[in-house]
């Protein structure tokens, strides 16, 4: 490894670093041995997106649990999860390290649209499966051009389209104001939403306002949006800003129907801070169930989740919707590996990832399941419309397919 003392001889440092080139494995598939499956991952454990780091930790704990139960077909799962700070150059570096130095078999739940966009060409060029990317961008469902990359989250565009259709059906003369994040997350929603409304109805949007993730608060944007006279408020925001927007819109006395995106549905970490009574009437399309919702207290998945967090994590993660999401994703990965049997070549892993039929991953809203096929790399396409009644999210209507 790099010697830290010999500063006088930078050449010594450079030589050491050149010599530590990745060692070649004799196995046919890198990362797979008779006793181990090496899985690679990049996660923003530091930096502005660090709230999502819990996803990586939950998945690591899940794999630890599987290992303690004997592993899969006798092989233990070894998740190597590296921090990329949500910075694409760092993601590229870490992924190259995982693939070339750590020799992982495949990548799992790499997080973020820009990071994944940066590594997708590399993964497809080197035929390394980029599985279940943890982002809702629509572009991951493209098996023709990128056969080694498959998504996981229901795409933001799909979700926004569902909301648009719902609005057209229930409030066709609404005046819509939108608050959205000035990043890939926010922009995807806007595109989907406008598409869902259709060109003829785009005039329904009377005002849009953006915010930066580094801003302290979105209160002033909410004030401006209210000033436009809109009666429907679409909040496309991550938890902290969603909570601010919910609270402010209530405090202002703004009597608008409010839609929020399903990244900010957690009762404990979004609605409680905003104020449960201030959150009444919110509408969203969810896919992960809320474990603090009293209606699910006897749900076997929730019980399993409680036992899991009691043993491997803590009460903090129990109520964290990101952790619940990760639990389901990890189970999906295990399902794929089980389906692979003894053929853990990268081709077969990819094939099985594209071969999930009605898999009910834990903690998904009952009725929503994971489906993939060689033409459909969009594992979760269903959403359940929910409305918040002050204590829990009440489903209404059918489960919708995007």
């Amino acid at each position, binding site marked *: 490894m790099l010697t830290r003392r010999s500063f006088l001889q930078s*050449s010594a440092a450079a030589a050491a670093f*050149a010599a530590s*080139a990745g060692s070649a494995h004799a196995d046919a598939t890198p990362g797979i041995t008779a006793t181990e499956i090496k899985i690679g991952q990049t996660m923003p454990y530091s930096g502005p997106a660090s709230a999502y780091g819990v996803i990586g930790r939950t998945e690591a*704990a899940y794999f630890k649990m599987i290992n303690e139960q004997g592993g899969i077909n006798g092989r233990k799962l070894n998740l190597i999860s590296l*921090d990329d700070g949500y910075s*694409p150059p760092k993601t590229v570096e870490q992924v190259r390290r995982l693939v070339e130095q750590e020799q992982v078999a495949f990548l799992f739940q790499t997080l*973020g*649209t820009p990071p994944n966009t940066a590594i997708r060409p590399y993964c497809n060029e080197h035929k390394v499966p980029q599985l279940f990317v943890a982002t809702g961008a629509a572009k991951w469902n493209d098996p023709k051009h990128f056969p080694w990359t498959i998504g996981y989250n229901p795409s933001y565009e799909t979700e926004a389209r569902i909301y648009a259709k719902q609005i057209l059906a229930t409030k066709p003369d609404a005046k819509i104001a939108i608050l959205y994040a*000035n990043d890939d997350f926010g922009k995807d929603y806007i595109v989907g939403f406008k598409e869902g409304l259709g060109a003829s109805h785009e005039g329904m949007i009377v005002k849009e306002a953006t915010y930066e993730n580094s801003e302290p608060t979105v209160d002033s944007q909410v004030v401006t949006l209210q000033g436009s006279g809109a009666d429907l408020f679409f909040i496309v925001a991550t938890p902290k800003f969603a909570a601010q927007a919910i609270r402010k819109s209530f405090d202002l006395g703004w009597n608008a129907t409010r839609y929020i995106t399903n990244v900010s549905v957690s009762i404990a970490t979004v609605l409680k801070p905003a104020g449960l009574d201030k959150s009444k009437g919110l509408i969203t399309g969810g896919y992960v169930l809320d474990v603090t919702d009293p209606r699910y207290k006897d749900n076997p998945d929730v019980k399993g989740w409680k036992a899991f967090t009691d043993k491997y994590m803590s009460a903090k993660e129990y109520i964290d919707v990101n952790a619940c999401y990760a639990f389901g994703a990890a189970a999906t990965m295990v399902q794929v590996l089980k389906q692979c049997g003894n053929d853990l070549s990268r081709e077969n892993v990819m094939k099985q990832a594209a071969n999930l039929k009605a898999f009910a991953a834990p903690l998904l809203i009952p009725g929503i399941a994971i489906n993939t096929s060689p033409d459909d790399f969009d594992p979760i396409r269903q959403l359940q419309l929910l409305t918040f009644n002050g204590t829990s999210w009440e489903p209404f209507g059918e489960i919708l397919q995007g």
Partner: protein
Amino acid sequence: MARRNGRIASIVTAAVVIVALAIPFFASGYRLYQGSQVLILAIALLGLNLLTGFNGQISLGHGAFFAIGGYGTAILMAKLGVPYWAAIPIASVVCFIAGFLFGFPALRFGGLYLALATFALAVAMPQMLSYKGFDAYTGGPMGLLLTKPHAPFGLPLSGDQWLYLFCLAFAAALYWAAVNLVRGRVGRGLIAIRDHPIAAETMGVNAALYKTTCFGVSALYAGVAGGLSAIVVGFVSPESFGLPLSLAFLVGIVVGGLASLGGMLFGAVFIEFVPNVADQLTVNFGESAKALPGAVYGVLLILVMALMPAGVAGAARALASLAARFFAPARRRTM
């Protein structure tokens, strides 16, 4: 004494050059990628050091010029079809102009205020990059993907090797330029302005011109680095150019040694590898400690500053003079 130091310096430089040239033939793609990053960072640090170390103007916002270079190169390549080897010089000229223009208001404010103004620039840059109005060119928050260049003229080099050598060529050329700049009249003028601005002016040094030009040149260096980075990574997005980058540059020049051009290589190695080291160290603390590498990095920063306040170059100089005294006790002492 100076001639002896000069000889040691030349030997070290030659050794570094030989090793740097040899690396592509021994290292894997991943290590070459890291090597390219080190060279890119070194170029940016050279530029920042010219401004801060030699000219005393503290900039906490060089990530912004890095971003202009990166996006400039990406837009030229992706939207205007300019080949990569031409895109970098063009983008770097844009950066020079941007830096030169920023240098004008910078003349009015002194050290600390300049630091704050550049700090604000670094923070505001990602927002400016994802501004709706520029979406057509910048790709907005989605960023721009670039195709990786292959070795020209059918040379038997992989893409990684070629890119590394490409970066090395730029680094060597820019280092040589910086050394000559610093050794000559201009360099002396810059240092004079840093240490005694009023005396320098009375000696006929045109402080305003020197300072703004220095800003422009250092922005040019950052721009070249940014352009190279865009090509090596193959992707630019606003997230690639946030505040942490500017802070890393500052850390790099201080750790490498202010006003030491050779030290910039160490600074680049530090900021490229030490976060990974911090990661490794915290692996021992268990899963929940994934948040800790930041704290370890902070502690390492403080430790490095405590042990080497004048940076690696300062420590090297101290060690060298210690060694000289140790190895030459029989020499006539001058005092």
